[in-house]
């Protein structure tokens, strides 16, 4: 399934970057209609699992494009405008798990699924930390608000969703890829 070099940017990355972005945008928007209740200001975005999956399956360039453009699209169809730091944070959230692409050879293998979830968690941490910390310069908030009010809820919510949905996506993808033969 993964026979491309990690940083290649060809037709495959263009197409899956666009598909990942459109899916991320559409799912983010759709789940606004069915919000999952949670404690405090923690919100769950199931679309994040799809973003991490695209990173793991197709590499860091696809993850970066899908996260950056997808978040921009989701904000745009909701009418919220454009917030570069959150879009870039989402891009990083997709890019970091993409670094493990070359190591994922069997999407059904338990250890490789755990590895993917671990890299997904790292991606969420890096991406949300970037977005939260840059909010200090953009929004003028202080470090504790950035960490407690922005980073922690986003990290926990996204991690829970990824830990649950990413393994299901990977196993389903293994079946689809086997049938497709490439």
């Amino acid at each position, binding site marked *: 399934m993964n026979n491309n070099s990690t940083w290649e940017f060809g037709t495959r990355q*263009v197409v899956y*970057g666009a598909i990942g972005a459109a899916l991320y945008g559409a799912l983010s928007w759709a789940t606004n209609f069915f919000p999952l209740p949670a404690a405090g200001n923690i919100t769950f975005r199931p679309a994040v699992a799809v973003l991490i999956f695209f990173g793991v399956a197709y590499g860091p360039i696809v993850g970066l494009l899908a996260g950056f453009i997808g978040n921009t699209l989701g904000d745009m169809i909701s009418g919220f405008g454009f917030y570069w730091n959150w879009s870039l944070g989402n891009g990083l959230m997709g890019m970091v798990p993409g670094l493990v692409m070359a190591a994922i050879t069997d999407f059904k293998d338990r250890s490789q699924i755990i590895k993917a979830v671990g890299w997904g968690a790292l991606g969420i941490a890096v991406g949300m930390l970037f977005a939260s910390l840059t909010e200090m310069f953009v929004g003028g908030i202080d470090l504790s608000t950035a960490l407690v009010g922005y980073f922690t809820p986003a990290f926990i919510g996204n991690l829970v969703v990824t830990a649950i949905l990413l393994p299901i996506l990977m196993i389903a993808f293994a079946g689809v890829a086997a049938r497709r033969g490439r």
Partner: protein
Amino acid sequence: MLVTWKYRPRNTFIQSLDPRTRFILLACIIFALTIPEIWDYRILISLFLFSLTQFLMARIEWKDIRRPLFFISILVFFIIGLNGLLSGRGGPSSVADPNSPILFQALIPGTTWGLTVTISKLWFAMNQVIRILSMALPAILIPYTIDPNIYGTAFKQLRASDQVAFTMDLAFRFLPTFARDLTITMDAQRARGYEMDKLKGGLIAKIRKLAPLIIPVTMQSTVTGEEVIDAMDLRAFGTAPRTWLKNLKYAPRDYFVIGLGVAIFITCCVLKWGFGIGGFFVPDFFTNALVG
């Protein structure tokens, strides 16, 4: 549940501008406020009025804009404004001036811990709200006033690579398709007894129950992707620079607006680093109005 773009053609000056001009102007406003760290109310109010003018000139209907404005107002006033008012942190150190007159204080008895609202913190909170709105108002306009079909061209002509510009263009085209697939999948699952509106069980069970909706759409999209890759490879995508159907051209008004944006950025930098103007301070009229 159909994806509808917020964009509508309107005969306004804002929409007559090249989309690249709009992105450059937005970047100039954000950079002007954040890079030299402007907190002087005179500059903040000037930039806020500039952004508000753009917002009003776009003539977006109230029914279209009220929902996002409501959410952004909550964020700005309650999270950012109250944070500034109560903690006073996040801005320059002068906000926490210990000599600033106290407006309100509630301390835990026997300690020096508690809540202290000073004139300085109140002024900072107000400045912070204005500063954020100055950056948010032009950003909110973008989806309402730029045709979604020209983002790819705009980014290409902003010197992005063909790959990046094409990714952007394809994403905009795929979005309504996947939103429609999502609706079809939801209807199909509902016909099988899947209750999307009433997800039962704990949090983990609820998230797991989203799988019958998310998995089919995602997997179908990966199959679609292979077909699109084949089509693009057959047309030799990536072997040479592409030509684009649409071609954007700057008009004199675009040069004027870009010049204005660059001038704002340079002025803020020169004022702050050249003349020391732009830092945070509480004006006397504000202090006198509150404490006499």
